[in-house]
């Protein structure tokens, strides 16, 4: 009996649950959407295609989506086109139609739809896609207009570069200069590229004052190391004005002198780099940055006279900067160390193995040179200079021993590579 009661209770509960479920079923459109979501998508498409009455915009969009998913892009586009006339959902429809146009390879049509979507609801990713389509179509005017709509800081680094390029392409140099300068101040990975644009435009238009002032400002800022390279390379393209430009920049940004010497040296603008170092020759001793620029200049250019002069002016208690003797060895061999023999103490040589090797070869102490060369190979050493020093062991048997050792010693092997 109890079992029957329990059964009746269960049945009653089941009916009650069913009743609640019926009451909870969404009405109208929501109900239809719910039904469609509950069936497999292929079946949902069949149901929508078979519908007798006109579909609501939401369902019509769903129908287009499922049609496109089934592979029929043409029919999906027709459904969206029909839907566009009776809804205000411009963005979704235009974006979808742009995708379908791209699938069909129609860039112009895709741009048209995407532009409509973008004006309805601006979006960063869509803007980049649209910009790329304009670029592929060669529509620079539309591309520039698209990028100009945004403030510079809302654009990605590459978009900023592109906006400067498009502005310059149209011959609007003053505007391009302003855009490039502002974009550099915003920072980011593309700063050197933007600076390159600014420098080219300023120098071509012979706006040397703008060049000097802006470059000096950059060299006092956080991106100075990267920008100094670009500034020096720009100056190097103007041999006639190079001296004037470099002096002008360094006058406005005195702290950048050493950095500019280094970068002008790397740009092979030795004459101008030498000119910039002249003030150090008048001082007793160059400062630390000055020494590193002086050494780099001597090493690159082969003009060791300034370095030689600065070294000779050192007082006995002054410490010789790291690597200062290497340019002398590169261009003059061990013999070039003779004026500094007082400096060739065991303590100093222990920390300068290549100098020790060169010095030892000069004094024919080949076994010491052999050991020093092995030590030098283990530190960061220029292989070309190392080989030049090691060649001094030619005919002693030690060079051959180094070559044999290089077969098992990776550091030595690196020294013998081209």
């Amino acid at each position: 009996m109890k079992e029957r009661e329990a059964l009746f209770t269960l049945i009653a509960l089941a009916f009650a649950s069913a009743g609640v479920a019926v009451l909870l079923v969404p009405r109208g459109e929501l109900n239809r959407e719910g039904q469609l979501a509950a069936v497999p998508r292929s079946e949902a498409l069949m149901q929508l295609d078979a519908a007798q009455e006109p579909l609501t915009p939401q369902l019509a969009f769903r129908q287009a989506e499922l049609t496109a998913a089934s592979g029929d892009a043409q029919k999906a586009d027709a459904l969206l086109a029909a839907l566009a006339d009776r809804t205000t959902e411009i963005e979704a429809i235009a974006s979808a139609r742009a995708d379908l146009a791209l699938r069909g390879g129609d860039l112009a049509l895709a741009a048209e739809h995407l532009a409509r979507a973008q004006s309805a609801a601006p979006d960063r990713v869509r803007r980049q896609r649209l910009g790329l389509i304009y670029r592929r179509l060669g529509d620079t005017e539309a591309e520039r207009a698209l990028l100009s709509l945004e403030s510079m800081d809302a654009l990605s680094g590459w978009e900023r570069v592109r906006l400067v390029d498009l502005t310059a392409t149209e011959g609007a140099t003053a505007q391009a200069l302003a855009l490039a300068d502002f974009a550099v101040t915003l920072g980011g990975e593309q700063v050197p590229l933007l600076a390159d644009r600014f420098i080219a435009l300023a120098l071509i238009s012979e706006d040397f004052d703008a060049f000097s002032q802006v470059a000096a400002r950059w060299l006092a800022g956080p991106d100075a190391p990267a920008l100094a390279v670009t500034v020096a390379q720009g100056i190097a393209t103007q041999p006639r004005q190079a001296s004037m430009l470099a002096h002008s920049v360094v006058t406005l940004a005195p702290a950048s002198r050493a950095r500019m010497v280094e970068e002008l040296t790397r740009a092979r603008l030795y004459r101008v780099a030498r000119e910039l170092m002249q003030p150090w020759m008048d001082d007793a001793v160059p400062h630390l940055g000055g020494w590193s620029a002086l050494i780099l200049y001597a090493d690159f250019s082969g003009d060791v006279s300034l370095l030689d002069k600065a070294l000779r002016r050192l007082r006995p208690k002054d410490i010789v900067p790291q690597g200062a003797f290497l340019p002398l060895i590169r261009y003059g061999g061990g013999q070039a160390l003779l004026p500094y023999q007082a400096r060739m103490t065991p303590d100093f040589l222990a920390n300068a193995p290549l100098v020790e090797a060169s010095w030892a070869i000069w004094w024919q102490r080949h076994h010491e040179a052999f050991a020093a060369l092995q030590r030098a190979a283990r530190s960061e050493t220029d292989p070309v200079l190392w080989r030049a020093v090691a060649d001094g062991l030619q005919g002693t048997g030690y060079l051959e021993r180094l070559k044999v050792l290089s077969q098992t010693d990776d550091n030595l092997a690196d020294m013998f590579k081209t």
Partner: protein
Amino acid sequence: MSVFWVGTALSIALVLMPLRSVAACLTAAAVPNRVIALFDSREEPTPETSRIAQHLAGPLAKNGLFPTYVDVSRPIPASIATNDISGVVSWFGTAVQNDDGLAAWLDAQDADCGRPLPLVVIGDPGGPALWARLGANGATAWTLHNGVREGMKVMPQWRGIRAPLEIPPGRLLAPRLPLDAEPLITIPGLDEVERALGFRRGAQTWLSELTMLAKDSRGVALVTVDPDQIVAAFTGDGPRAVPDLAMFQGLRIALAILLTDGWRLRAPASGRSSLGQPAYALAKAIFGETSAPVSFGWPDATTDKIGSDADATDAGHALATLPHVSALPAYNIAGGISLGSPPLLRLSHPSFGGPKATPRAGSSAISELVGPPGFADPTGLHARAAAVARSDTPWPSSPDVLVIRARDLLDMSGQLAAMRALELHASDARAAMKIERYAGWLEGALSAQIVPEGPYAWRVQNRGALNTLRIDRAEGWVIDMSRSTGILGTSRYGPTLFVALDPASSAPFLALRSTTAAVTADPAFVEVVEAGPELSNVNREGCQTVFTAEGRGQIKFRSSAKPAVKLGRLSLEVVPTESDLWHVSLPTRAASETLSIAVGCP
């Protein structure tokens, strides 16, 4: 006496003509198929990720040329056998360590070759000695440009393909045009002297990197100048025979590859099931039912932890053991996917290719044909299908490569797109292949020697599994079937002839004749235009042409009159398609059988 000398000179000229037309070294016995690709590992750590591999290996492979990479920051090999070298390409961003040494080495290669090897230099040649070799002065090559297009002169064929050629403002490498050079792209110089962004000087071509690549607004490389124009420096003039990587018996080769990525994921629940179907069940259903060969990246513990789920593992094993499925490991490599261990074949990353990508062999690979995802196409497979259908420059330049990750099947769009693509692969419109076979085809393309035997005639040796030879620039030329041997037939797309080679012939011989040449047509002659079943052992005797046929499907052939066709003793219905074109359908047979086509037999 003078007649003798004229005759001798003419004979020598005729023998040398094909060699000259393909720009080979004097010692070359075969059409060269290698290009020395110079890269600097200080800039680009591996050849596979170098700019040459990314942007030029595809167009080179399409033209039957494969790069031999040489790292200029390491000791350069003292000598490279130049007999199979077609030229040299370099692409540096800055000066190399030893420009004098490299220049001397290039001179030595020219001397070894017996003539200047075609040299394509992109970007910085590598230092003063290499600039001097080009006849230009590197010291004054850097200049400034304001970005204005006015005054820029571009030879028509050097205009951009995917985007118009634009030179942005900034500092750029643009040397003064050497006196004896032909300008390709120039801009006005600041000093009133025209500056070159590209020039050709004898066998040398120099191009600024800015003409090759631009960056789009996302920072992605955008190829501008048509790479085929660059490769043309190595391919000479006139008809050129190359191993083809896209067509088999007149049909586009199709490769379907299923990867286990997302193997155990489930599709969203629907009203009829509280738990959506897992990707492995969908994969098993879709790929198990097709008749198209499928390469299945299975098993590989590194791509997915399949082993912990028994159902997923069982589904994988069940699929892997089906006869049309070849299972092999798949793993990710720098810039792509590698299939097999050791790799049979590699798929390069989509960004290396795009929908019109061409196959790559050797250390590089083939590119999958992809499409960007879009509205109701989250996997991009529908867009891919559309791109394959549209690829027309030239069509078909690459196999139809379908790569599906198991996760792609979780979406209806992905499922339907995959099913449609597989249907196409299984149809008479495609020659679907297993990946092992295509890898063999690529190997054959690398090993093949195409030896000139007289003017516009070649013998193909050491071709391995390669079964199609393509004749580029064949406008006004057809295969001279009366002289050629080991050929099943030809099909033509625009100026290109695809020649189906008889797999049973160890060294087929191809001869071309001009379409204007007077010839007496053989009324009994039959040639295959397209064939689904695999044909071999062609034997043309009198009014009968006999093949060995294996497999089912349609064969389209050319014949001057309606033929009688028999498969073994079974007569087949011959259906006319176009003027002098006919087709027959071969039923399924257990083994290979003799197919005979008789035209005008008594």
